[in-house]
């Protein structure tokens, strides 16, 4: 029996955007997309035929239309199709976090070329991230390399005369402050707590694997923009590398707050194969003429 996703949707409009930490009604129940699941996550797609074009982002995680570098750095991730038939992940980070005045760079990598036969009709793409260290409970998720490591302090916004205790004052003055969440040395020091393995499967078979890949933990920081999980399209801002809406038709999406094992991915694929017209990649077993 295949594992039940947190949610799934058929024939989505592109992009379909869910707010991180938003509450959604679904299947006689409700769900929330958390910033950071305990062990990792899985994205599952059924696309209808590969269409190679630029600006082909089919998944984005991070702030929408965010232009401030401190807000979107290490806070953005997208997957897209390249024109030469590959799947690519991209994110923007600092070139050298040890330096002040550092510049931002795009880091990315891509899969081998997707087989033609396997992407000619419907095809199943599964992306799995499994963290090296598993956490349990909110405290560990927030503090072990998590969002709380971005906290650097408060900024008092009252005027000095307002908060100082003056003679004859009876009521305590309320200090107004704003919290500051930003990249800091502690965030980098705990980087190893965010590392894991990213795997990309095509039609239930492993296509790509990268170890010690740093997860993205979506955080609001000082931003007023929406923090989202966007299916079928990307966003402007965030280093302007996640633009576009995929031209491929997306017949199904599913999100799991656990990293699926190979056997689960395969099981899910075999179930999807009965529901969609998926072709296998043709293996090199063509009959050759006997000379």
């Amino acid at each position, binding site marked *: 029996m295949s594992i039940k996703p947190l949610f799934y949707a058929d024939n989505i409009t592109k992009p379909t955007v869910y707010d991180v930490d938003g509450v959604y009604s679904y299947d006689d129940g409700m769900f929330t997309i958390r910033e950071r699941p305990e*062990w990792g996550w899985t994205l599952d797609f059924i696309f209808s035929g590969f269409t190679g074009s630029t600006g082909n982002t089919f998944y984005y995680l991070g702030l929408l239309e965010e232009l401030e570098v401190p807000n979107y750095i290490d806070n953005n991730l997208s997957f897209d199709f390249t024109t030469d038939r590959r799947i690519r992940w991209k994110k923007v980070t600092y070139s050298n976090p040890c330096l002040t005045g550092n510049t931002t760079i795009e880091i990315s990598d891509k*899969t*081998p070329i997707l*087989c033609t036969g396997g992407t000619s009709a419907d095809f199943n793409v599964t992306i799995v991230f499994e963290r090296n260290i*598993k956490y349990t409970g909110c405290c560990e998720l927030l503090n072990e390399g998590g969002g709380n490591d971005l906290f650097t302090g408060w900024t008092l916004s009252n005027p000095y005369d307002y908060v100082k205790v003056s003679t004859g004052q009876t009521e305590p003055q309320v200090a107004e402050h704003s919290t500051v969440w930003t990249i800091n040395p502690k965030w980098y020091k705990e980087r190893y707590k965010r590392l894991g393995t990213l795997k990309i499967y*095509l039609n239930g*078979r*492993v*296509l*790509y*694997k990268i170890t010690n890949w740093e997860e993205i933990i979506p955080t609001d920081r000082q931003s007023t923009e929406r923090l989202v999980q966007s299916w079928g399209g990307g966003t402007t801002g965030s280093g302007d590398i996640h633009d576009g809406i995929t031209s491929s038709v997306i017949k199904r999406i599913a999100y799991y707050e656990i990293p699926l*094992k*190979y*056997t689960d991915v*395969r099981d899910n694929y075999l179930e999807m194969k009965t529901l969609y017209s998926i072709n*296998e*990649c*043709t*293996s*090199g077993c063509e009959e050759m003429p006997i000379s």
Partner: protein
Amino acid sequence: MEFYIRQGATDPILKLKMIDDGRNEKSFVNDLLENSSISFSMNDIKTNKPVILNDICYLAARQEKMNQELKEYCITYRFNADGTANPGRYEGLVTIEFLDTDLNITSKLIVPIKEKLFINVI
């Protein structure tokens, strides 16, 4: 190795797992198995004729109970009633074909290696 099954039965399931003798690095095997094609064949010992030929095998994951880490895969094969229709002693072979990303076969492993697997249909 001896495996016993009743005539006409489909259970018990045949399971094979890699021997961890501590001498060989085996973590890479899990990755290889995830992109492989695995089949089971069974030959009659007396006649050497195949009774089951390249029937599909499955992988089952064994996970750590504490943190759900993948420990290892084991290869499983469930007999069908035709395969166990006739009592006798047979030799079982599992063929693992490792594939590349285009599903072309890169290498082939036939197990077990050190000793033979005998299937006894009784």
